[in-house]
Structure formats: C-alpha cells, structure tokens
C-alpha cells in the first residue's frame, strides 16, 4: 500500500499534461498525492497541512525544467523542504569537563529505552568514554535484569538498587559513578504515558535532583498521529535536548520524526536499527526523508558497500570477470561480500523503488536461498569450484550430502552457473547494485521453481506461439547453446 511517492505522482500527472509552468490547477492532483503520502507516513495532520501550504507556494510558478519530469521536480521540492524542516543534524554529545556527564532517557512504554541505553553505551565506549548504565525502571517487572544483561553484553557497569525510589536511586548512581571513575551516566527510566501525572512528576523530580546534562526522548518510528502529543508533553515537563528514533529497521516511514521536530523543535540525534547492540547510527535527515518518501537509502547502501568491500579484491574480481574467468570460487567470494553488507532483504530495501520488489519476493527468503547456494559451493573442493565439469555422479552425491541438499540441487547450480557465462560478462560491467539485483533474481528463480532449482521461471507472453514460431525459437536456442559450448572449449583451463 505504500507506493513510492514518485510512482504515485507519475500516475497522478498522467491524467493531465503539464507543460511549461507548474500551475495551481495542474498541480492540485499531484499535491494531493504528496499529502496522502505524508499522512500515510504518519506525519502529523497539522504538520502536513502547514507543510502543504509551503510546498504549494514553492511549486506553483516553478518552471518545469526541461528533461525533468514534473513529478520528479515536485518530489525534489518536497524532499528539499522536508530536509529543511528536519534541520541540520548534530549527532555529537557535549561532555562535561569536570564530573560525570549525565544522560537521561525517557519515553513511552515499549519505545525501546532499555535497548537504546545499551546501544548508547556502546557508542560512548567507541568514543573512549567510560559509561555506566543506571536501572531506574522500577516499574516493569524484570526491567532491571534486562538492563543488567545488556550491560554485560556491552561490557559496561550497571548500577541498580532495590527498595529505593527512582529519584534517590539516580542520585546514588551519580555518587557511585564518581567513585568508580565512570565519566558518563545513562539513566534508563521507566516507560510512562505523558498523561500519567504521577509518573511525569517523578521524572521531573529526577531531573530536578540529578540535573542531567542531556535529556533524550526515545521515540518509536512507528508512532502515529499521537507522537506530537507525547513528545510535546515530555518536552514541556523536561525540556528535551534530543530525540532518538528507534525501530527504523522495519518498514515504518518514520513520519513521527518530522512531526516531533516541527512541533517541539527538538532535533533527532540518533536512530536505532535492530535489536543488536551495535546499531545506533547518527541521524541523517536526508536518509530519513528518502525513506519517508519511499525513495530508498542509496547513501546507506554505498556506505555498507564501502565498509565491506575490499577495494583490491574487488579490482581482481572485476578483471577476472572481464576476461570471462569467473569460477564458482569467485562467485562464492561475491556472495560472502554481499552477505557482509547485511541481509539481502535489507540491502534490497535500500534501493529506490526496490521496496516493492522485496515485497513481491514475499515469502521467498532470498537470504536462505543465498545461504543454500553458498553451502553447495562450500562443499566442493577448490578443484571442483574452478572446474565444475569434473563433477560426476559420485562427486555430486558427496557435495549434496555435505551441503544437506539433493544431488539435483547441485547439478542445478552447476548448470545454472554454466548458463551464467554470458551473464557474468555482463556482470563485469555492472555496478555493485546491479549485481545484487541479478543475484536476488537468481534466488527468486530458484525458490519458485523447485524442480530445476536455479532455472529462470518461464514467463508467459499471453500468446500461444504457432508451431512454426516455436521451431524458429528452438533453432535459435540451439544455435546459442552451440556458440556457448564453442566459447567454453576455446577458453583454456575451463
């Protein structure tokens, strides 16, 4: 249901011609789509209204740039305006020169405070700080145990006490931190509703007595229209210094961030992705805006690729491929490389417009498909990897047993790999992005066609061919096969 905005707009613009200037009349439908997209991204209604007024001002009268389609231009206007609204990001934490810096986390129940505490502690460790976690959530059963486990995982001391009120506990924590030589304190407070006066008063008490240097509001990216109400209430009570947006690894569009920023003026500092404790990232407005508009996360992908791909290795492979000397061993290396970047699903989600594709994959698990292929290759000897034609029935059986698959899966992979000869040559000209697309296509083909594991599924043209046409196609295929065989024969070592 979340089409990406650009696609939506192009369908809206199809209904009428836009020529020359974007006028109020021809813009109306396009703007309506923008509005719907924002509302479906859970941007607050009032913020959207306000926002739309500003967009309209800019859009109407803007000259349609030649070669740029009007929907692209409108998306650009929206995109830029949203980034402007988000404001510059500042993921730094100012530390006190003397004494420990106290950071207090607050938020609604289930927004992810405890997990975020752990992530923040890890981030601080990487900045050469000595953090201490404080279990100030005495409400939820076992919350203290959870924080203790998190602290152990990160390798950070956790301060907890029983039988005291949270205010006293936080005060004691500061004393303890001084004693232990910890320079940063993270207070993990209990989740509470902003309408719960009693618990809000408790927070205010902690704030008054402990004087935290930073108060961060932990906000679930999936929050709907109510985000504004809760953030505003917390801001009013505590004077927030920043927002940490969590659960952004899902497909929520995170419109809450825009609303919260607009209404409270508090900047988003970090974003949390995933339950693993290493994934607190500095907030990047451009990336989030892209996500809200369904435009993918190219920056994230490039970063992930840069972080994992060894440049030298990549160059060697590129050369090999260009020469057509690409064997199963190289293929395996590529799989490992892509796997390092995250799950295939994750990686796919980062492409603009690929969100739908991930969806269309549906139940087909590209990740396990890739794992399966790697398993088969792993079970081969190096010699078999470079010369798959050596694989006879006996070897095939051995490989299948090693990888826990059927022997037919092995021959399926080998066959497909042979068929990839020309494909590989294309790959050598491809960017990293295209390679992944090609590979996931492979995974899909395999899962949807259990008989010939790795063959591409037949796609109906809607028209049954005449016997004559079929004969023609058959001859063409045979010709190609012969050509392929000839090429292989001519390659030394293959």
């Amino acid at each position, binding site marked *: 249901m979340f089409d990406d905005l650009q696609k939506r707009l192009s369908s809206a613009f199809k209904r009428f011609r836009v020529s020359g200037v974007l006028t109020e009349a021809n813009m109306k439908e396009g703007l309506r789509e923008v509005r719907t997209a924002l509302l479906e991204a859970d941007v607050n*209604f009032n913020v959207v209204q306000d926002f739309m007024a500003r967009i309209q001002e800019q859009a109407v009268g803007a000259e349609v740039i030649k070669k740029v389609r009007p929907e692209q231009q409108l998306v650009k206007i929206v995109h830029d305006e949203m980034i402007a609204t988000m404001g510059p990001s500042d993921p730094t934490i100012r530390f006190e020169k003397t004494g420990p810096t106290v950071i207090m986390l607050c938020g*609604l129940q289930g927004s992810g405070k405890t997990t975020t505490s752990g992530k923040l502690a890890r981030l601080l460790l990487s900045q050469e700080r000595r953090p201490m976690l404080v279990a100030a959530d005495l409400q939820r*059963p076992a919350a203290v145990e959870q924080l203790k*486990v998190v602290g152990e995982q990160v390798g950070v001391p956790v301060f907890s006490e029983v039988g005291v009120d949270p205010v006293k506990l936080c005060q004691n924590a500061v004393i303890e931190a001084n004693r232990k030589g910890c320079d940063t304190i993270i207070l993990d407070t209990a989740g509470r509703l*902003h309408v719960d006066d009693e618990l809000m008063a408790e927070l205010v008490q902690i704030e008054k007595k402990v004087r935290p240097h930073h108060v961060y509001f932990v906000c679930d990216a999936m929050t*709907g229209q*109510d985000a504004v109400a809760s953030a505003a209430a917390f801001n009013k009570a505590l004077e927030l210094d920043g927002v940490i947006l969590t659960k952004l690894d899902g497909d*929520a569009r995170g419109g809450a961030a825009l609303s919260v920023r607009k209404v409270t003026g508090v900047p988003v500092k970090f974003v949390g992705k995933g*339950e693993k404790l290493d994934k607190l990232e500095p907030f990047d407005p451009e990336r989030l805006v892209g996500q809200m508009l369904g435009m993918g996360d190219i920056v994230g992908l490039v970063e992930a690729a840069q972080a994992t791909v060894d440049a030298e290795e990549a160059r060697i492979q590129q050369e090999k491929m260009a020469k057509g000397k690409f064997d199963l061993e190289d293929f395996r290396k590529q799989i490992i490389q892509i796997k390092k970047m995250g799950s295939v699903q994750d990686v796919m989600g980062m492409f603009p417009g690929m969100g739908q594709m991930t969806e269309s994959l549906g139940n087909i698990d590209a990740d396990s498909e890739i794992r399966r292929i790697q398993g088969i290759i792993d079970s081969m000897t190096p010699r078999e990897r470079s010369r798959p034609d050596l694989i006879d029935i006996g070897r095939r059986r051995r490989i299948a047993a090693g990888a826990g698959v059927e022997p037919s899966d092995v021959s399926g992979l080998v066959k497909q790999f042979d068929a990839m000869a020309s494909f590989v040559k294309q790959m050598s000209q491809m960017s990293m992005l295209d390679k992944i697309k090609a590979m996931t296509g492979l995974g899909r083909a395999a899962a949807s066609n259990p008989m010939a594991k790795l063959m591409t599924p037949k796609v109906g043209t809607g028209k049954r061919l005449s016997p004559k046409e079929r004969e023609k196609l058959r001859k063409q295929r045979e010709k190609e096969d012969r050509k392929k065989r000839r090429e292989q024969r001519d390659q030394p070592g293959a």
Partner: protein
Amino acid sequence: MAIKGILERFKKGLAKTAQLFNVRSWFGRKVDQAFLDELEGRLIQADVGVAATSRIIESVREAFADQTADENLVAFVKDQLKELLRDPSPDALTVSAKKPSVYLIAGVNGSGKTTSIAKLAQRLRDQGKSVVLAACDTFRAAAADQLSIWAERSGCEIVRGAPGADPASVAHDACQRALARGSEVLIVDTAGRLHTQTHLMRELEKIKSVVQRQIPGAPHEVLLVLDGTNGQNAIRQAEVFTKSIGCTGVILTKLDGTAKGGVVVAVRQTLKLPVKFLGVGEGIEDFQPFDAEAFVESLFS
C-alpha cells in the same frame, strides 16, 4: 451494570478522543467541502488512515451533501464505524472442546505482548481456568523473567527455556506440560519481531507448526498485539503477520494515553481482523473484550 462499567472505562480511556470529535460543534453547519475537510482531518488525527477516512467521507458526502449537519449525520457516521468494527462472533476467544485451548500471541517489539498476556492470563484465572504460559521469548534479555513474575502473581504455571534456546522447543515443552497437566489454556508468548525480519517470521511459523503438531487443531487463536499509538504501519504489521501465521484477532494496547487507536478501523477494513481485546490501562483489570458499540459510542458521548 457490567456493560456500564465497560462503557465507563472506555470513556475514561478515550476521553481525549471524544474531545477530538467535538460533536456539538457540528450541529447546524452546512455539509460542504470545508466541513468534510474538517471531518477528514479529525479522522486522520485519530490514525484512521487516509484510505479508510476517504471512504467514510465519501459516504457522508453522498448522503448529506449540502444539508445541515444534525443528529442524523452523527448517527450516520457512528453507524458507519460500528458497521466496520462489529465482530460477527462476539465470543471473546475460541475454546477448544479438547483441552487445552492454545492461544498464540505475536507482535512487534514493545507492542505490549507480555503485559497483555499477563492481563489475559489473569482474566482466564479469574474465570477459574488453569493456565500454562510458554515463555518463547528467549531472545530479549530477561523477557522470561518478566513473564515469570506475572505468572507468579496470577498463579499460572510457566514453561521457560534457557536464554537463546530455540523458541520452538520451549513451545514443544509447554504443549507437553499443558497436556500432561490437563490445563485448560496454554498461552504462548513470543519474542517481539518486526514484520520485515523474514527469518524471525519463519521462526514464528515454526513455533506455530510445532504447536500444531503437538496439539491438533491448535493454536485456536492467533492474536496480534498492536500498539495503539502506532500509526499506519500497524496495517503492514497486520498484513505480514496474518500472511505468516494466520492471525485470528487483534489485541489493541496502550489506549490509555491520548492515542486514538483509530488504526483499528483501517486494519479491520483491509484485513477483516476483529479486535478481541483492548488494553486501556496499566492495571490488570484494564483489559477488556472489545465492544464495537461501546468503542464507537464512547467516541461520541
């Protein structure tokens, strides 16, 4: 009396929503575009969503265009919402003829699964039923501890595994325990997972199939816990979870804040998933069967 008690609770929880639908101010106004825009804004602010809202607006436009808004219009909108939310089978939860009845609970992280299970277990205990809880959340630190504390409070038996253990094995043991003890109800708690994490959704399917194999016909209910403060993403959650494990109902939580929980309307409209329970407070008693009449009435009273 009981009905009235429920109504009161709803009213309390949803008081803010009712304010939003400030009904009186509608009377006497002309039903024109400005009026409809305002109505639309209000529904969207209640998280009803764009698609569901447009449908309601369209039907209001058709029925009342250029008339003056009055009680009829209010009744009309109410009926629209009620019609949408009415559950054809008002029985709260399916009870299996053979013991135990198995209820599988799933949802995204932090939606309130464990708390909801605690409340549900208490409710069933109050009805005099014997309950076994399966702590299949072996991932989140101390999740099983949290459930244990609740189990102790409500007098339920709990089956748990080592941290990091295969949740399906815990489900298996819990089924065996429930069968051996002749317990009436088995509630399976699962780890929170985002619906985009395919491998975790697979894990959930595995838990379900293990339960199915142990107890034919189980799980008798698959309840999806939705956070009432969530916006439109809740629809995606409902879609994906339903596709994966065939949800039979929804537990809507955290309605005691200012969140409107209107996404229920959209969930109902797109997936036909009935809302079974509402969580409207922190107390163990603040957990009520969903009643479309009361829910909608409380919006307008």
